[in-house]
């Protein structure tokens, strides 16, 4: 997989901090940023940081990984329904695979997504772990 340094850098706000947008017209929480509210279709550029708390909507343990992720297989990917509304696709981490279930509360952590060979940059981003303290 070719290194795409500018691409990874450009997405730092989303990957490290779950930076999205909030619609000033209808209050809809938007992630990732798309500048147009998917709910009311008005311009929506107000920055908004999501809490990173959510729950598992679905999950799967993946045994055959695509190029670039082979060394991590098997790993568990999930759809996470965030508290504020948006859903994201992400890996689960710090889990006992047998204990993962739909509805499980999770929280975002920053982890390494990918190493690009011995010499390449490390790509970091969000993963989700079982929520430590249920506030």
């Amino acid at each position, binding site marked *: *997989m070719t290194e795409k340094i500018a*691409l990874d850098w450009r*997405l730092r706000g*989303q990957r490290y901090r779950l930076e999205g947008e909030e619609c000033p017209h209808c209050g809809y929480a938007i992630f*990732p940023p798309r500048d147009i509210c*998917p709910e009311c279709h008005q311009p929506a550029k107000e920055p908004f940081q999501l809490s990173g708390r959510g729950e598992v*909507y*679905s*999950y*799967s*343990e*993946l*045994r*055959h*990984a*695509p*190029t*670039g*992720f*082979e060394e*991590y297989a098997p*790993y568990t*990917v*999930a*759809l996470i329904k965030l508290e504020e509304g*948006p*859903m*994201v*696709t*992400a*890996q689960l981490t710090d889990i006992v695979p047998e204990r993962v279930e*739909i509805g499980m509360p999770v929280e975002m952590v920053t982890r390494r*997504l*990918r190493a690009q060979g011995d010499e390449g940059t490390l*790509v970091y*981003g969000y993963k989700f772990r079982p929520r430590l303290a249920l506030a």
Partner: protein
Amino acid sequence: MRDVAIIGIGQIPVGEHWDTSIRHLALGAAMNALQDANVAQVDAMYVGNMLSGHISGQEHLGAVVADFLGMAGVEALKVEAACASGAAALRVGLMAVASGMSDIVMVVGVEKMTDTSGQDTTAALAMAADAEYEISQGVSFVALNALLMRRYMHEYGWAREDFANFAVNAHANAVHNPHAMFPKAITAAAYNRAAIIADPVGLLDASPVCDGAAAVILAPLDVARSLSPAPVRVRASAIATDPIAMHDRPDPLALHAARLSSQRAYAAADIQAGDVDFFELHDAFTIMSALSLEAAGFAERGQGVRLALDGEIARDGRIPITTLGGLKARGHPVGATGIYQVVEAVLQLRGLAGAAQIPNARLGMTQNIGGSGATIITHILEAL
């Protein structure tokens, strides 16, 4: 707009064609279609393909196919819409003929998938999803379908075993298709025993990586009868889109673009779902069969699996699907699949499907899905 008919079909066997490059795959299908239509020249050709750039290092496929067919000079373009590229190319061809801009048009769907390693092909297929927010997380296409299947089982209470008959039915039908990659029957027990690739998706839930090409020739309906002894009329062509990332769809199990695309096609053809004699749906994974049957109006939400369990998807059932093997057993050479579906529908409507023939088939529907459902294209064909 002019009505359009299919006056010729061509296909090559789906499989691992180690000795054949992508251009020669396309040529094989194109030559067969030209011969079937008994025409030597076309006004334009549209090539449906997803992965030629990534896997064969070859873009600009319209010019390549036109050149090697000895037709350099003709209008030719590649059309891409992920796994729905074949049907997308057909739609472009239909627009060309319906508008009057071209008379005789060839549409070729082709995919060469076996020239890269399994991981590389897996990564290439994932490009149909959202590069920045899905692929970057390490999901594969199998995993996206696994996420859908697990949620579906959770919401509606089905077990993995309940999906077996989608695969069993596809393989039973493929036995009668000389162009199928897996023309052999499987049992539900084999389905249950199959290795898990991405839980709960097992090997026999998934369509195979393979090479293939299929082609059709289009003409205005009013001249089709003079050109072909058995033209098939295109009653409807409808395309719809949904958010590119599965996680951005309010209800990922709704397959909203399939619902829209089907409804637009029914309206254009002035029919209802119940009028369709058979349905070549996009069974890339068993869960997609269930969701497609629901979205197209053949089952209530959560009840698509029931049609398989009750045998209603078989040749003599209420809504026969994957009548010549589907993606599961004929094979799923992605950009070619949409055209294979149409070629098979034409065989059914001509009454030439052999032991797989649906008795008195008059109206057939095909549906080609791009990605996890972001582009869905429906065609309705009618025997004349």
